[in-house]
């Protein structure tokens, strides 16, 4: 036996204990059903380092994690929702047998971790079967839920099927404030869901998407998480994709708000033991882009409700043709498809990324954000202070202010556009 605490072959991550080779932050820190696009796309926690790096020549290293977006349906109407504006209707969702096969293929490909997410995954009547298929394949499963629809019987079924952990979203520290952002009465259901999860002994994480309307409540949010028995709290500053782009002006915080919230988080970290506080950085403010997905096609993949496979959950709008599990194996998609190869490694980069010393650290930032803001996915993410387009971000930050939130509309089939309930600052009546 060589020295079990030897540090020779490891140390990719600064704080990994000796003997552990490296840690991989999977799924990303902002994996809530309402903020799915930020999964991994954000990658930007300030404490864990996503390992991956540019793909070596030849076969890409296998993926660690999969975000399974089981449905785009969701009982909540959060204005910060980062799912695409055009949701996939329930009629186009994968069948149970498709998901069972996806789980098997994912495990064989190297996926260790799956987020069962959405939308609200509890809307899938076959969630238990899908969970069981993942668990059978040896995949660690985390349910990412709003908590709405989680009763004792349903949770018992999921635990029996092999579910490993639960991440619950909450929108603010109090029932009134949380329900106002969610656009529907849901806080009581969340509180009940947290209690049920604690009864099972499964690890419970709380996820709160932060923005102008709730950043001043960080202390109350942490107190709530402690009261509910959460072991991890992800304080995820809003990532602007999909529906959230419509509300950017009203959701972007002030620099003062952010600084105060960050200080609160630091104070809590000094006091807390056994509870992990994750602060997902808001990339509009620091001039530092987030390391997109830990590298495009490097660590994780997203399977959408209709079987589309994307390197990043925010990528729906990119001008790429995304392969589908109905047509190809996950292995082919990961290793051979053009979409997964498009921004892998660094060869696709242009200046200033190409010659930048940080190109293997942040991978030029987020491709989806570069495309959304400049129309060219190969440009440097405007969130980067070195980007020629950085002024776009600073202008947005400066123009932020109070404004009306546009609630996410209930899902409707794409062929009959839903009438918009816009301009209302009160929860939609359900």
């Amino acid at each position, binding site marked *: *036996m*060589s*020295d*079990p*605490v*030897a540090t020779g*072959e*490891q140390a990719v991550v600064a704080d*990994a*204990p*000796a*003997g*552990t*080779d*490296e*840690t*991989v*932050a*999977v*799924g990303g*820190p902002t*994996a809530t059903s309402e903020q799915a696009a930020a999964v991994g796309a954000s990658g930007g926690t300030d404490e*864990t380092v996503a390992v991956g790096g540019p793909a070596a020549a030849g076969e890409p290293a*296998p993926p*660690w*994690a999969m975000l399974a977006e089981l449905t785009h349906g969701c009982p909540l109407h959060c204005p910060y929702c980062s799912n695409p504006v055009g949701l996939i209707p329930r009629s186009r969702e994968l069948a149970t047998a498709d998901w069972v096969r996806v789980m098997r293929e994912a495990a*064989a*490909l*190297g996926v*260790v*971790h799956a987020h069962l997410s959405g939308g609200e995954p509890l809307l899938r009547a076959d969630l238990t079967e899908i969970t069981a298929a993942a668990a059978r394949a*040896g995949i*660690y499963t*985390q349910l990412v839920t709003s908590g709405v629809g989680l009763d004792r019987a349903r949770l018992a079924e999921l635990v029996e099927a092999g579910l*490993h*952990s639960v*991440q619950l979203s909450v929108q603010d520290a109090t029932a009134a404030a949380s329900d106002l952002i969610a656009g529907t009465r849901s806080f009581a259901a969340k509180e009940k869901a947290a209690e049920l999860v604690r009864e099972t*002994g*499964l*690890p419970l*994480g709380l996820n709160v998407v932060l923005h102008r309307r709730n950043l001043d409540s960080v202390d109350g949010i942490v107190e709530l998480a402690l009261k509910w028995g959460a*072991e*991890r709290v992800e304080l995820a500053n809003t990532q602007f994709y999909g529906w959230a782009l419509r509300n950017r002006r009203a959701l972007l915080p002030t620099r003062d708000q952010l600084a105060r919230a960050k200080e609160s988080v630091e104070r809590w970290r000094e006091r807390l033991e*056994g509870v992990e506080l*994750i602060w997902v950085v808001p990339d509009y403010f620091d001039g530092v882009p987030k390391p997109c997905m830990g590298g495009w096609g490097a660590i994780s993949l997203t399977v959408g409700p209709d079987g589309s496979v994307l390197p990043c959950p925010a990528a729906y709008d990119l001008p790429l043709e995304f392969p589908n599990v109905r047509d190809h194996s996950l292995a082919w998609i990961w290793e051979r498809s053009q979409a997964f190869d498009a921004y892998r490694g660094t060869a696709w980069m242009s200046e200033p990324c190409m010659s930048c010393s940080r190109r293997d650290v942040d991978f030029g930032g987020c491709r989806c954000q570069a495309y959304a803001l400049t129309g060219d996915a190969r440009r440097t993410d405007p969130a980067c202070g070195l980007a020629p387009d950085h002024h776009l971000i600073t202008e947005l930050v400066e123009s932020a202010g109070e404004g009306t939130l546009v609630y996410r509309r209930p899902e409707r089939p794409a062929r009959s556009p839903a009438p918009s309930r816009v301009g209302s600052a009160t929860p939609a009546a359900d």
Partner: protein
Amino acid sequence: MTTGAWRPAVAPAVILRHDPVRGTDLLVMPERIVMLNDEAAAVLRLCDGGRTVTEIVDELRGDFPEAPVAADVPEFLAQVRAEGWVR
């Protein structure tokens, strides 16, 4: 404060498993995967809540007579306990 009488166990939220695709052992937990080297995995596999640290050290000493396990194993266990991966 690792004592010889402590009976370490991998935390309930943490799974210790082999990864046949990568040929390595892993600790898997919410939002994180930790790759283990062979020695770390050998220690953790013995953390079943039944064996004391002393017993774990004795067992590994038999398997790895050349290594300074008496010093290194308790130190490693203290580190992974501080991470919350072992109780």
